[in-house]
């Protein structure tokens, strides 16, 4: 489903050039669940943003479902984001003016889903993250962990085929983190392809495939692949 070839991303700020990604190659098949790990500043978020059609890249080719993303115009990219992709951002990026219900509603509105269907989806996804009773609260009335869960609910409500999660459990206690992980696994079983960045080795281990980004490149993506038991044993 995702096919990146020789992707590089250079951030140009005044005097400094940052090579956030260099010669980045990756294939992701439909239905995979991939955990991405790596040191801070290694380019994980950059990779996720490019994979999520949020950011242009400097070089290389990126095919998503066979579509050459580099050749799309702005509207077509917005459409792809809206139709195919769900995000859980590293910062939760909730809209402060909107209550939880309305925050979850945002992508559904842009997708043109009817009000009744929106309501059904919002309620069920808030239910899934255990915040149904807080639907009318504003983000600032919630704890960091709760906001994180709203961000997850917002991604889930769109029933994306491709879910990108940047530290989705970063602000959660280990119990909650495990619940979120189970939720993601559930969605994955239901057919969504998931790429998740995490610092938590335990969570990473639960994912069927791991890749590690170091210094803007994939370092070693066979390490835990397909064999979590090997790690536990090591």
């Amino acid at each position, binding site marked *: 489903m995702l096919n990146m070839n020789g992707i590089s991303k250079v951030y140009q700020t005044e005097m400094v050039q940052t090579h956030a990604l260099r010669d980045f190659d990756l294939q992701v098949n439909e239905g995979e669940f991939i955990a991405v790990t790596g040191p801070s500043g290694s380019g994980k978020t950059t990779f996720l943003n490019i994979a999520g059609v*949020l950011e242009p890249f400097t070089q290389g080719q990126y095919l998503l479902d066979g579509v050459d993303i580099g050749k799309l115009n702005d509207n077509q990219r*917005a459409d792809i984001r809206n139709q195919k992709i769900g995000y859980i*951002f590293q910062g939760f*990026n909730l809209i402060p*003016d909107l209550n939880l219900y309305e925050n979850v509603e*945002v992508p559904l509105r842009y997708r043109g889903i009817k009000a009744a269907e929106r309501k059904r989806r919002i309620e069920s996804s808030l239910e899934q993250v255990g915040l149904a009773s807080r639907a009318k609260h504003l983000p600032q009335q919630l704890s960091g962990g709760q906001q994180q869960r709203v961000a997850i609910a917002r991604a889930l409500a769109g029933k994306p085929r491709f879910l990108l999660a940047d530290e989705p459990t970063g602000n959660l206690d280990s119990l909650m983190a495990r619940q979120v992980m189970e939720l993601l696994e559930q969605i994955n079983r239901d057919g969504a392809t998931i790429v998740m960045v995490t610092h938590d080795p335990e969570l990473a281990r639960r994912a069927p495939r791991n890749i590690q980004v170091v210094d803007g490149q994939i370092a070693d993506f066979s390490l835990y692949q397909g064999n979590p038991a090997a790690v536990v044993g090591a």
Partner: protein
Amino acid sequence: MFFHYVDLSWRSLKRTPMVSLLMVIAIAVGIGITMTSLSVYHMMSADPIPSKSTQLHHVQLQTMDDGRDWWSDDNMPYQVTYPDAINLLNADLPYRRTAMIAAGFAVHVDDSDMKPFLERARVANADLFSMFNLEFIYGSAWTRNDEDSQASVVVISQSLNDTLFQGENSVGKTINLDGMTVRIVGVIKDWPTYVKYYDLNNGAFRDPEHIFLPFSLIAPNEIITWGNSNGWKAENVRGFQDKLKSEQFWVQFWVDLPTDEDELAYGQFLMSYMAEQQKLGRFARKELDFALRDVKQMMVYREVVNEDNKILVMLSFMFLAVCLANILGLLLAKFLRRAPEVGVRRALGASKTQVFIQHLVEVGLLGVIGGILGIFIAQAGLWGMRKSNDAYTVIADMDLTMLLSAPAIAVSVCILAGLYPAWLVCRTTPATYLKSQ
């Protein structure tokens, strides 16, 4: 989606109440001032008698000898001479017509405690009433017979009738105008016009008259004009009868020409009339000339809406532009601060267009609120104008068109001011603000 945008906009306005208030006030003041000047302009330039304005024609004759100049745009005297007026009245033509002058009298009624008071009058022909759509509530116009026999008759307006006779049917009663006693034959509704288009020689925005006398009373009663008299020729005008025979201009002449053919025919009549007069020794000039202008042409010709009014409207639009520039600055600051939220919306699938429209709806909403507030400011402005100058009493007012156009103008200018900020904000790249909160 539109109502959703309105909802979002309303919240956004509430979130920054001070900035929103500033913007609304800026719009309201700008719109208020613009609408004040525009309303006056609109009223000034409005057609005062739409059903007849293309039909009623004002007559001007070039009676001056060659080499004489007048200060009008077309070198044509604004008024006609008394002898010409009489000749035109006597012409055997199927058109309604009236000569007229402005006059004024001390009015008093016998057996009344009321003190005499000065009142302006219009001395004209009986056709005046039907030509200018004046409605009778009692009695009727005087007749041609009354005119021919120089009968001392008068038509008064409803308000004068209210003052003098408490609104009773006063037909048959007499009143005294200076030393002349006249019998009331009719009472009309007050002349419903705010532009004195039928006599633009002495200010376009004065109240219409309340006393109407037959033109034929001028000669026997030596009624002097309260309007302008202008001469171009050295003449020995000693007494009133000299003036009647002189080449001085002091009479207005109107004729009712329903069709273009009538207008053409009347023009030909005027030419032959002048040629005839030439034989009698007047009109010492090579080319004979006349002007027939309908009501609207007359208003343009006499600059009812003058340069000052136009400049005022322009200035107020410039003021609006300044308000707009301020709003633009505030919007820019406000919208750009919202870039992170826009980034999230873009990441969640909003297209540029959707973001753009959302922000335009927000400025549109500002415009609606500012526009409605602007109407109140304009009403206050117009009230001030009415208080400051009697000439504006009737025209400093807003009709429905103006009331409706206030919010429309406000919304369009706000959207104009909002275009650039909205465009800037919709260009926010989705990823920029997502890396951290």
